[in-house]
């Protein structure tokens, strides 16, 4: 019996390799470095991410598959690589001082962030359902550990455990769904082959639909779509703030990358079936997220619900299932990465040492005490609410246009109504910052250089891609050309 090893090019998974090597290097250095000595793991992590970003840009424009058709090489994946790298890099930057305060500035934290990023890349580029599942697990396991980073903290523990149990459950759903599809397709899980194979045998239709339903549940859990969102507030509140930012941004982006790739590539033929389910999910997610966010007084919990609401808007783009919708998914996830990480950066800054001040009333009087910080926070809030000239507005504009173009007028109307509701709780932060005097002296805000840089960069980014979206529009539009069924 002979095995033929298919030919492959390591360069096509260059970013993965770089990041994996970086993470291992960090772990080894961490183990070897004498106790108490500080090694700048964060810089190492940033360097690795930067190299990966360069490799991604080098891959830009190439198309095809590699590793026996297991990996897609296309701009859709590359675009998401950049989102993940950006998310991870910004997370690394906001983490350092924060973890230092907790005495948790350890190598494994950065290694786990990077491993999670590799997992996300697998999800975005996998051309086989098993690859996607592997990526999902690599990512999830790293994030489970990250959520429980503060071992002494009960809430962090609770968050990690809850996330682990529910996450495993949802992974099981996903895997089960894949198994159904495997059966229905007669033994293949390649995304390229699935559309033809699934349509071949009408008798298999129930199996296909069951598989699709299970996939929706699995992915819906990862993107925090209602009604599978129940873990989100507790986990986001309990996890370390930097990890929460990472989960809210990068994990969601990765889940959407896989979600979009699988559904747009493999199931365009049964669009009518899953569209309606996603329609309901989108409306439920938006509404539950926004309405629940109104009554939150903990800023992390509020942002958790806000992230649920944003998952709803993104689901709208999935429902639209046209070129514009797919494009808006890419644009919005990038915009969301910037605005949400910026907001979390401010949350860490205002929280001072060890998350002391997470109540929204702690933001009162910030406008007078720290005008620039308050202005940035106001900008992020405006962006999240979708007010021009920020990236959030353009993103919502694309999503709603996509929904209208696809004929889902009511969905767009519900989306706009939800945006209106969301303005309430986003603007409340702004009102508190500018129109309420500080209730007590909360001590000075320590502006560490990295955190300040994150807030400044994301604020500039939110404005820049909000005012000049044309360039990104073209990039994203080219990236979604890979979906012939749309």
């Amino acid at each position: 019996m002979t095995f033929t090893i298919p030919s492959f090019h390591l360069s096509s998974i260059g970013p993965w390799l770089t990041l994996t090597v970086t993470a291992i290097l960090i772990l080894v250095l961490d183990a070897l470095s004498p106790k108490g000595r500080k090694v700048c793991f964060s810089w190492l992590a940033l360097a690795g991410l930067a190299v990966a970003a360069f490799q991604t840009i080098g891959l830009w424009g190439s198309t095809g598959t590699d590793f026996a058709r297991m990996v897609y090489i296309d701009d859709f994946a590359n675009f998401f690589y950049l989102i993940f790298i950006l998310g991870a890099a910004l997370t690394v930057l906001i983490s350092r001082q924060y973890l230092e305060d907790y005495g948790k500035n350890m190598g494994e934290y950065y290694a786990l962030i990077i491993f999670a990023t590799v997992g996300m890349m697998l999800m975005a580029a996998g051309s086989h359902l098993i690859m996607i599942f592997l990526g999902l697990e690599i990512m999830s396991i790293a994030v489970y550990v990250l959520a429980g980073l503060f071992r002494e903290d009960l809430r962090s523990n609770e968050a990690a455990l809850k996330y682990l149990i529910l996450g495993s459950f949802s992974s099981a759903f996903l895997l089960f769904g894949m198994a159904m599809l495997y059966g229905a397709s007669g033994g293949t899980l390649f995304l390229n082959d699935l559309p033809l194979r699934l349509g071949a045998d009408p008798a298999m239709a129930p199996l296909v639909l069951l598989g699709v339903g299970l996939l929706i549940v699995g992915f819906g859990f990862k993107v925090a779509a209602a009604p599978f969102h129940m873990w989100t507030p507790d986990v986001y509140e309990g996890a370390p703030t930097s990890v929460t930012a990472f989960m809210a941004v990068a994990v969601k982006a990765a889940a959407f990358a896989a979600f979009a790739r699988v559904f747009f590539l493999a199931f365009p033929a049964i669009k009518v079936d899953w569209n309606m389910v996603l329609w309901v999910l989108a409306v439920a997610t938006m509404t539950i997220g926004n309405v629940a966010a109104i009554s939150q007084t903990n800023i992390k919990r509020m942002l958790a619900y806000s992230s649920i609401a944003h998952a709803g808007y993104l689901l709208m783009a999935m429902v639209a299932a046209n070129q514009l919708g797919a494009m808006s998914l890419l644009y919005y996830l990038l915009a969301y990465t910037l605005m949400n990480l910026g907001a979390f950066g401010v949350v860490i800054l205002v929280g001072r040492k060890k998350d002391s001040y997470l109540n929204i009333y702690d933001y009162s009087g910030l406008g007078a005490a720290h005008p620039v910080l308050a202005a940035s926070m106001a900008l992020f809030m405006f962006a999240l609410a979708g007010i021009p000239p920020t990236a959030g507005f353009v993103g919502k504009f694309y999503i709603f246009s996509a929904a209208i173009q696809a004929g889902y007028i009511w969905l767009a109307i519900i989306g706009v109504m939800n945006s209106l509701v969301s303005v309430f709780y986003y603007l409340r932060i702004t009102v508190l910052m500018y129109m309420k005097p500080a209730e007590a002296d909360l001590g000075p805000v320590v502006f560490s250089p990295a955190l300040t840089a994150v807030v400044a960069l994301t604020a500039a980014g939110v404005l820049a891609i909000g005012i000049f979206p044309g360039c990104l529009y073209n990039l994203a539009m080219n990236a979604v050309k890979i979906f012939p069924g749309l």
Partner: protein
Amino acid sequence: MVFSDPILLGCLLTVFLPLSAFALIMIFTRDNPKLSLAISLVAATIPLIIAWTFFFKLGGRAPIIYNFDWMVSDLVKVPFGFLLDPTSLVMFVIVATISWLVQVYSIGYMAGDPGFGRYYADLSLFALAMLTLVISSGLLQLYIAWELVGLASYLLIGFWYEKFSASEAGKKAFVVTRFGDIGFFMGLVFLVIFYGSLDIATVNSAAVANSMPPWLITTSGLLIFCGVMGKSAQFPLHVWLPDAMEGPTPVSALLHSATMVAAGVFLMTRIFPFFAASATTMTVILAISTLTLILSSTIALAATDIKQVWAYSTVSQLGFMAMGLAAAALASGTLFAGYYHLTTHAAFKALLFLCSGVFIHHFGTNDFFTMATQGGRKLVIPMACITIAALALAGIFPFAGFFSKELILTALAHLDNKLWLVLGLFGAFLTAYYSFRVIFVMLFPKSPEAYSKVPGHIAHVEDEAHGHGAHGHADDAHGHGHDEHHGVPWVMIFPLLVLASFTLILGFCQDYLEKLLLGASHPHAMNYFLLVAAVGCALSGIALAWLDWGRKDAKCVGFISRFPALQTFFIQKWYMDHFWRWFLNRFIYGIFSKWFTYNDRRVVDGGVDAVAFSTVGSGRLLSFIQTAFLQYNLLFMVVVLAGVGIYLMMGR
């Protein structure tokens, strides 16, 4: 690309320097007057140099256009950029120069004001907006700048916001111009929907080539003129401009006489071919502007506040410019007459205001009768300058106003209906009268008792018109804080001299400007009848003013007091403020606000309350689901999955 092209770099600097000055001052240096001043002056000087360089280097050349598509998606593309052609270059120079002069002047005028830094930030904001407006290549960009100019105007009028009347005046200006801007915006929307482009050059050439439906030109032309009416204070939206004089006097000189209010007229010249393509629009404009001219001139001859006189004079001269443009368009003439008057008016009206500013600063009152009795003419340079400016305003040779008024009257004479010409001449007569009323009172003051019968004039010294904390007038028995020997600071005199020299030489630049604007200078057939008529009107106005106010045994009540009803009518400003008050009460507050408030209370507030209450309620329900018991969560997921599965199966 940017740095290899000096012209583009210049345009970008012009826009971004004032912007950064505004941001820097507002964020960092607001409490440091010296530094704020330095930043603002640098950001005003460089655009000034750029403006004059462009003017001389690019004046004769073909228009230079930079267009950058601001793209949102394939369907929505909006061009942004710069358009440098003679029309914009002349205005560019006017705005940059006067704004620089006013910034210099304000060093003296605003010295010691607690809001000094904020003042310069606002001036920078204005410079940013106004310069962008002038050199923008698209109408949407122009509109954005237009609104920003309105914002700067609002901030500057209400600069002394502790004073109720100032903040009210700012609000009034903002709201009244907004009425017009709604129309402007609607006009742009019409253009976009039915024509598809807002590029100025494209719109103009399309109007010339008749490739635009006539109804569209008329409709959107009239709508855009609404914006002009608001910004350039044409009847019936002129009511905000006199109130805007609550702002610091340099601001009145810059925004509310020379540049910002001229933006409306500038817009008309900017898309003159487009406006000219519809005779209906132009007739409406002609009627409105003529009414404005007469209305505001008559109000000006009864005012006692020196700034009010110049404010109404500004309104009337803006009307005169619009008349010139409309008449030229109707008689297939060129935009030169109106535009030329805009240029000369900018110089002499800014001069009038800045001179008045010196008096106001010195005597602490706005009432020119009081100034006169307290020895206003002892300030020689301002007195000489204000006289020069008044001569120009009245249209006396060889001052700038003579030439430009002559041109507009010629344009009016080309119309078939000579009524417009007669009204124009009447306006010129009134203008000469009211401006020399001020000059003669100032030059040949009588005893304070002589002015006691002037309606509106209050004999004793009022508190200073603006809220300077620095000038302590209260303890000064003579009512003025500065000793005569202190004189006037040179930073305030210097701009006066510059503007006075402009007033003197601009008249002789007519051919040069005409060649620049139109490409060729047209020989004018001198209409001697018109010349005599115009000069006669001006001189008779001055003579009447002399009889009423100047000569030794003048009665000092004005000829208008023979017609008490008319006088009251003019003093009450044609009851326009009363009309608007009634209109607001009756329609806006009585109908719209009432219903909107009802809607807000019942529907919106009620809705939000309902959401909040139900959130609290559902919070209880959710907290049951949201327990620490994971089993429930898992159970719920399975139930939903079952639901999804059933739905999918049933769908088949």
